[in-house]
Each structure stands twice: as structure tokens, then as C-alpha cells.
């Protein structure tokens, strides 16, 4: 429709990681396993999680902003986790928001 913003679909990657200094027992266990396989130059291991979201937005910046808000609210726990949000530069057309 005339005047309606065109939306594209962006794939947004969220990396959630344990905050520095926080005990990460999973990372520690993996570090030990790697050391026992001879990877003695790997000095530390931290384990987080990656979350991928498909977001309809007008720009990568808008998609990133939306997802950062969701991170603060739900996707990461600010007490124990940090997060990093990256939107892929090129969006693809989406049916949402009236793309013609």
C-alpha cells in the first residue's frame, strides 16, 4: 500500500555468554577434555549459546534494536550473562508489513 514502510526479513544472531569472572563449569569440563586430547595451547574455554531470529524490520539497525530489547527482557539474564546482537546486512523480502 502507498506510504507503508517496506519491511525486509533479517537474520539476527544473538550470542549469549557467561559474564567474565563467572564460574563456567561447562567451559571448565570442555577445557579439561581438550587438554587431555593434547590441545595444551587452548588456555581457556567459555560456553555460551547462539540464538537465531528471523526479524521483519525496515533496516538491520531496526532489527538489532528490537532484538537487543528482547535480550534485556528475556533472552539473557543480566545478572549472569552478556549478549551480542548481529543482524545480517542484506535482508530478504517478507510478507509481513505489506511488501508488494
Amino acid at each position, binding site marked *: 500500500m502507498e506510504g507503508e514502510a517496506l519491511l525486509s526479513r533479517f537474520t539476527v544472531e544473538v550470542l549469549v555468554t557467561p559474564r567474565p569472572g*563467572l*564460574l563456567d*563449569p*561447562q567451559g571448565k*569440563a570442555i577445557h579439561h577434555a581438550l587438554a587431555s586430547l593434547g590441545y595444551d595451547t587452548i588456555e581457556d574455554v567459555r560456553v555460551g549459546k547462539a540464538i537465531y531470529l528471523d526479524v521483519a524490520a525496515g533496516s538491520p539497525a531496526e532489527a538489532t534494536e528490537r532484538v537487543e530489547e528482547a535480550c534485556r527482557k*528475556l*533472552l539473557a*539474564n543480566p*545478572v*549472569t550473562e552478556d549478549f551480542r546482537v548481529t543482524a545480517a546486512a542484506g535482508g530478504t523480502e517478507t510478507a509481513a508489513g505489506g511488501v508488494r
Partner: protein
Amino acid sequence: MRVAVITFPGSNCDQDCYRSVEVAGGTPSYVWHRETSLGDADAVIVPGGFAHGDYLRPGAIARFSPIMDAVIAFGRDGGLVVGICNGFQVLCEAGMLPGALLRNRSLRFQSHDCHLRVERTGTPFTADYLRGQVLRMPLSHADGNYYADPETLAGLEAEGRVVFRYSDDRGDVTQPANPNGSLNNIAGIVNARGNILGMMPHPDRAFEAALGSVDGLPLFRSLVGANVAVGAGNTREVA
């Protein structure tokens, strides 16, 4: 004393909590997580289990269940709220208690009896215990490793808000007696006002002799006997 027991999809200790309240002389009722009102409840229990499958983080999704707005408002108004195990995780995620429950230091699901030392008796949840009393009750969790930043932790200690600590059977707080890596062996805490309790071990699995321990019953007796209830339908003053 009317006690609302919240049931989420995945709760599995709601019946234990219900029965504990009954045995302690209170009047329990179930409140489904899709409800938006606690009715005339004088106190609320958020029970253990795996609400919403523990997906994302334990308690993270349950914290946004429709009933939680009412639970948060109830606690803010001074109403008595107890979170046990997964319930403790939910209360932390909801910001009703400080800190977080991380994966156990062992990376294992721990399921066994533990000993707790009672650190605080002047709460609506521990009035029927003696200070320094050693309790035995089950614990059952993968994420019970209590963490708070150094400043928060110092505040909890300075304000005497650590209610239970993991100890050995003599009441000595030692690392071997710490089942999950919790900072300062913390097993249970209250909020600054003292009307919200969170704890990982299960008093609701230790309320009659057939269960192997009755050490959890005084907690429910204290709760049921507390005269500080301030519910939505209840205007009694906080003592």
C-alpha cells in the same frame, strides 16, 4: 491461612506443597499459571519442577506467565511468597529476589538429602525453627548454584538475609557439604523486606515421617501461623 500454590506446565511439586500446607493446618488451593488473580490468598507458594521445560533458562519463561504479574504485585505489597527449587529460580528471574541459580558445579543433576543450618529465625518462614538448628531434607536440581555479584552478596550477608546454608550434619558450613557450588553455601535467602523466601532444598518433601524427615514441616507451620499476611483481599498490616 489461605495459601495459593501456583501450577505451571512442568511443575511437579505443586501437590507436595499443597499437602504440606494442609498438614501444617493451612488451606491450600491451586492457581493455574494462565490465571491473572490470586483471589483471596494470604500467601503464595511457587513450587518446584521444570516450568515450561526449563527452556532458555530455568524460570525465564515462567517468569512471564500471566499469573506472575499478580505474584510480583502481591510480593511488592508485602504478601508472603515462598519459592522452592524451580520456584526459587522463577523468583530470581522475576527480580523478586537478587542473584541467579547457575548450573551445579558438578554439572550433574543432584538428587539426595542435604543438611541445612538455620541462619535466621525472625522470618515468617522460620519462626518455628531454632537458630543454628540443623535440618535434613532432599534436594533435587541441576541449577542450584547460587550466584550474586560481590556487592549483592555482601549486602545479603550484612543484612542477615541468608536464611539457610548447606552444612554437614553437625551444622558446620563446609565445602564438602556444598552440593552445587553456591556462594557462601547459600541454600535460601529472603528479600530486603523479609516477606519473600527462595530456597533450593525441598521442605515440601520432608513434612511427614513416611517421607524420611519432618524437618520441613515447621517452615509450613511458620507460614500458616504467620500474622503478617497482606494479600490482595486482605488488609492486615505487616508486623
